């Protein structure tokens, strides 16, 4: 899900930097709690490592993204966390492009924020097992939205839908399923052992 240098038109990648920069600045200006940084580092490290592990699926190769995990654990801070992870990947390991750090952050970061929204809304319901259910939903939605954004970017390059659908959309469907299961299980487990790690958890709440 990392677009390389030289693929997108300058209009698209410059817009990516503008959106990513504005959102990251807004989030960091809004909340700069130093005590959150260790948690932020660990989750960023998890996102970083997950996206380096490639799985061959059919005619292509995909990797885990864990943007949903970042969303449900970091909330709004997931966006700058993904920004940092992508900067490290691009500069230190040549993974993804440098001109495309902004747009790649948008592709992975906006879905993380959406996952946070879904999870937060879900935790306010009275459904039994809501953390696991909405955690899984958040994990799956984050990837699906990421695929949609990535496909949209590729279509701006003149890529045909007949190419984007099998190599981007279909190839990532197993990732949607796997991450939904993993993040759902993670949220269900964490709410029992360390609920403070999850956004939207309230201490007064009785753990189901």
């Amino acid at each position, binding site marked *: 899900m*990392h677009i390389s240098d*030289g693929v997108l038109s300058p209009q698209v990648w410059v817009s990516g930097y503008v959106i990513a920069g504005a959102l990251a600045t807004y989030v960091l200006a809004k909340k700069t709690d130093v005590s959150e940084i260790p948690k932020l580092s660990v989750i960023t490290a998890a996102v970083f490592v997950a996206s380096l592990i490639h799985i061959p699926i059919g005619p*292509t*190769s995909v990797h885990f993204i864990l943007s949903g995990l970042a969303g449900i654990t970091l909330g709004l801070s997931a966006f700058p966390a993904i920004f940092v992870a992508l900067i490290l990947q691009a500069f230190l390991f040549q993974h993804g492009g440098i001109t495309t750090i902004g747009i790649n952050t948008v592709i992975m970061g906006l879905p993380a924020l959406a996952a946070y929204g879904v999870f937060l809304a879900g935790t306010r319901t009275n459904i039994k097992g809501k953390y696991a259910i909405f955690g899984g939903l958040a994990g799956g939605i984050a990837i699906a939205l990421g695929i949609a954004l*990535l496909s949209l970017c590729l279509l701006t390059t003149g890529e045909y839908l007949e190419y*984007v659908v099998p190599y981007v959309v279909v190839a990532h469907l197993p990732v949607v399923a796997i991450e939904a299961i993993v993040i759902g299980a993670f949220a269900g487990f964490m709410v029992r052992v360390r609920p403070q790690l999850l956004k939207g958890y309230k201490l007064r709440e009785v753990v189901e």
Partner: protein
Amino acid sequence: MNKVVILIAVLFLSALLFIGLSSTANANPHNILMNYQVGRIDIDVYFSGGTPAQNAHITVYKPNGAIYLEGETNDEGEFSFEPTVMQGEWKVVAEHSGHRAEILIGGAGEGGTSEMPLYITVIAGFGYLIGLGGAAIGYMGWRAQRKSESGTPS
């Protein structure tokens, strides 16, 4: 009569000289000749981890920068083409689902891009980020210590 013979002889020798000069390389048995033919260039395209990139879009650029040909890799991620000349550098660009790689071909032998082993990348990246977390914890500790020191009556 003698003049006629001399004229014929001069013409004959001139003709021989002309023929000889115009086909020196082929006529001279003491020369060693050499030709070469440029063969195919084989390209391998694969994802990090080694999965072949099937149907990757390939664009081959001539040394003057003009597009020579375009095509797609096969199921093994392979693509071959025959360059017309070997002077200058040929550029081959491979694109697949937002990923892009390019390679310059001009020298002899094999070449290509390489990647860092996965375990080194993982350890290094994890180390950097945990280091950042550690630095933040250190800062928090230092701040808490200062706070407790300033709160302690002297």
